[in-house]
């Protein structure tokens, strides 16, 4: 007898935090067409209400759907709708699997090991991710909780070591920036805040309240983002605009005793976060697509998804420098708009309409 997986609210909070912070570590001009500027740290501090607003549609839907995932709820409304929503969210999670892997692959092949094939790192990351999917949701969340503690402590250690190198002259006032810069920074941060995806898929599996976990995430994650942006700016100053991976460069400046730099720690934090993110995204992608797959083909779904994600991530990291598909801000904002706002609201509205119809239909009197 298999029991329904139970994830603690604390584990969900840890995962959301790790997922968001790691994406910020990967901040690169290549991905965002935007250099870290004075408005970014201010935008990070202003982010909490926007993050909460971003989750509102998901919670509106959750109120209507109860403890079932967005796909299960769509199936309960109608089968064709369920299929369409599952396909859409499956594609969304596939995108979320490919995104961090290809960014990491691009980082390693462009900075550390250019001699490696672009296929090497996606394969290295997605093979263990497939194994993690086999081990299940609870195992991934348990590991993510541990990794988030390790990663965030490492991050704080890097910042602490860099403190003596903070130069106040490097910190410029955000108010000298051109009009609209703050809004752009906010939009950029929101376009990378895709954690609501997970919230939409897991309401039934979380013990102790998804809302509490998300609220904690919305309040704490911006503090880490602020810390990262502020550290990069305070240590590197305008030099950060010339760096492809500014936080990695800043960690390279940190020295502890005989250790010449902490860039390896930054890279380790990055890969651990990417592993956790890609594992969960792959698992949820499989979960979305499973009802659409013929029974005979179901055992092959995970290997197929893993292979497809590896190929896509490899292609994307190889062509990232040419900006073929760089997960730019407009694309990611579109994803946020469709998946996190439009679809949940649409499903909530359809659910309400169905409920109203049921209420209006008079019950057949018993004879």
């Amino acid at each position, binding site marked *: 007898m298999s029991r329904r997986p139970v994830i603690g609210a*604390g584990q969900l909070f840890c995962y959301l935090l790790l997922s968001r912070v790691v994406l910020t570590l990967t901040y690169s001009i290549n991905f965002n067409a935007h250099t870290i500027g004075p408005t970014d740290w201010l935008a990070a501090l202003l982010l909490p209400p926007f993050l909460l607003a971003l989750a509102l549609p998901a919670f509106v839907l959750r109120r209507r759907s109860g403890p079932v995932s967005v796909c299960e709820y769509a199936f309960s409304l109608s089968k064709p709708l369920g299929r369409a929503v599952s396909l859409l969210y499956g594609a969304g999670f596939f995108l979320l699997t490919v995104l961090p892997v290809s960014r990491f692959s691009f980082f390693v092949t462009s900075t550390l090991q250019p001699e490696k094939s672009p296929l*090497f790192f996606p394969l*290295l990351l997605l093979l263990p991710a497939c194994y993690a999917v086999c081990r299940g949701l609870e195992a991934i969340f*348990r590991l993510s*909780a541990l990794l988030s503690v390790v990663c965030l402590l490492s991050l704080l250690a890097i910042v602490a070591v860099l403190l003596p190198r903070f130069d106040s002259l490097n910190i410029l006032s955000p108010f000298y920036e051109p009009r609209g810069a703050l809004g752009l920074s906010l939009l950029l941060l929101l376009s990378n805040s895709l954690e609501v995806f997970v919230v939409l898929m897991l309401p039934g599996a979380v013990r102790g309240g998804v809302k509490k976990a998300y609220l904690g995430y919305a309040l704490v994650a911006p503090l880490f983002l602020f810390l990262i942006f502020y550290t990069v700016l305070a240590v590197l100053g305008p030099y950060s605009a010339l760096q492809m991976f500014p936080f990695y460069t800043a960690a390279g400046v940190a020295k502890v005793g*005989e250790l*010449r730099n902490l860039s*390896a720690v930054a890279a380790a934090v990055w890969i651990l976060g990417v592993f956790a993110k890609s594992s969960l995204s792959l698992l949820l992608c499989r979960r979305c697509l499973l009802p659409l797959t013929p029974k005979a083909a179901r055992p092959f779904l995970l290997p197929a998804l893993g292979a497809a994600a590896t190929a896509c991530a490899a292609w994307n990291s190889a062509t990232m420098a040419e900006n073929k598909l760089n997960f730019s801000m407009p694309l990611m904002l579109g994803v946020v708009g469709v998946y996190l706002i439009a679809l949940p609201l649409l499903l909530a509205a359809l659910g309400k309409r169905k409920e109203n119809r049921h209420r209006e239909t008079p019950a057949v009197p018993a004879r």
Partner: protein
Amino acid sequence: MNAVTFLRQFFHTARQQQYADPQKPPEPLSKNLQENITRVKEAYGNSDDLTVRELTVQNRRFACLALDNMVSKDDLNKMLLEKLTAAPRLPTDAEECFSFIERSLSTAPEQQRAETVDELPTLLASGFALLLLDGCAVALALGVQHFPARGVEAPRNEEMERAAHEAFVEVLRLNVALLRRRMKTPALRVENLTVGGRSKTAAAICYLQGSASPKVVDFVRRRLQRIEIDAVLESGYLQPFLESRPLSLFPTVGATERPDAACAKLCEGRVAVLVDGTPFCLIAPTLFCEHFQSMDDYTLHPAFATFVRLLKYFSFFMAIVFPGLYVAIGENNPEIFPTAVFFKLVDAEVTTPFSLMWEALMIHTIYEIMREAGLRLPQSVGHAVSIVGALVIGESAVSAGLIGAPMIIVVAVTALSSYVIPTLYYPVAILRFAMILVGGIAGLFGVILLFSLVLLEIASLEFCSIPIFAPFLPFDRTAMRDAVVRAGWPTLARHTARVQALHGAGEEDR
């Protein structure tokens, strides 16, 4: 039905028929004494160690059957035969005579009736003496066992500084007594059962009523009852049947040779399985953190016990990761080494013909061969193996320029670290090789990912919904007082630890 399912079902049915033979009803004993003796003899193929003593007392024919060296002849004489021959008057009716002997004559502490022929070989092999009576279709089995057995000795594999110097032995009853002596509560339950189609090995499930989760007890009981295996000669035969994922490198069922350790686990709601012929006791479930605990922790000062535990966790990390990390950094990211260390390493490695990965693989393989050779040999020869190994590897290989001296240090540190947690030696040894390979091929990132996978594997293990990585994952703050740190006894005594009450364990047991 696919081919695999068909074959599985086919073999399952065949095995069930082999052991249980459900078609054949049990054959009752005959009232004819000679017929019964012949049947037992036939069952043993006239084996020479089956002794049959026929005697006639007051015109009534008896036979006493036993296996050589399995019973105490003195006890048998005192408890039955002397009294039987000296009895003033036996009832004339065979059934009444049997009841009279059973109730009034025999003083054996353990006795039972056997009514079928199939029961007799099992009873004989368990050290019972059988009394058969002409005209009566029932046999009286008398518990006068006297096996050649080793006495209680000091533990060989789990030696402690201050804890008791008593270990389990091969005799099941004695092992149960060792538990009873420490746990005088009547809540200690012992359930006997037989495992092994041919060996019919006696086993016992022990648990504390009220402490152990009924779900866990039931799970262990059902698993043991369903085992289909020819012979169970060691508790290790049963372990995979109890494991939630037998193919996983990390065990969910542990073993101990210490009765005090077993009692401590019973108090925490675990279930112990004792198997006749095995000086080890299986403990289910065994959490990952328990590999880092020992009985000595609870007798030492809490601060020192905590220090030792932290040292063990660090040793586990070193034993798995150190060689892989060295290879990964040395081959792919040497810039991470401090400058002075870097130049020393380059100096040592520049003359060797192999890459770091091959060096590490070779040295570790030689080391494992030496360890295995030393382990199975007599102690005196084992020392010689160590000396040869130290000379060959330590001196010759380095001076011949085949292996760098730093690699020897890495292997030595790794080997020492792996002995700190002996119960995890085998998973650690396998993972160490995997780490070296991954470190050589994929570098630092590969090592980090593989270590994450190891953690994921441990985090995914459960025994009856009890997470094996608890109380770390899922995190349980209150249970930390006996996980990473060891709180003082006043604190530990205030809280009752129950394995099924850990965070993440099945809700119904909390």
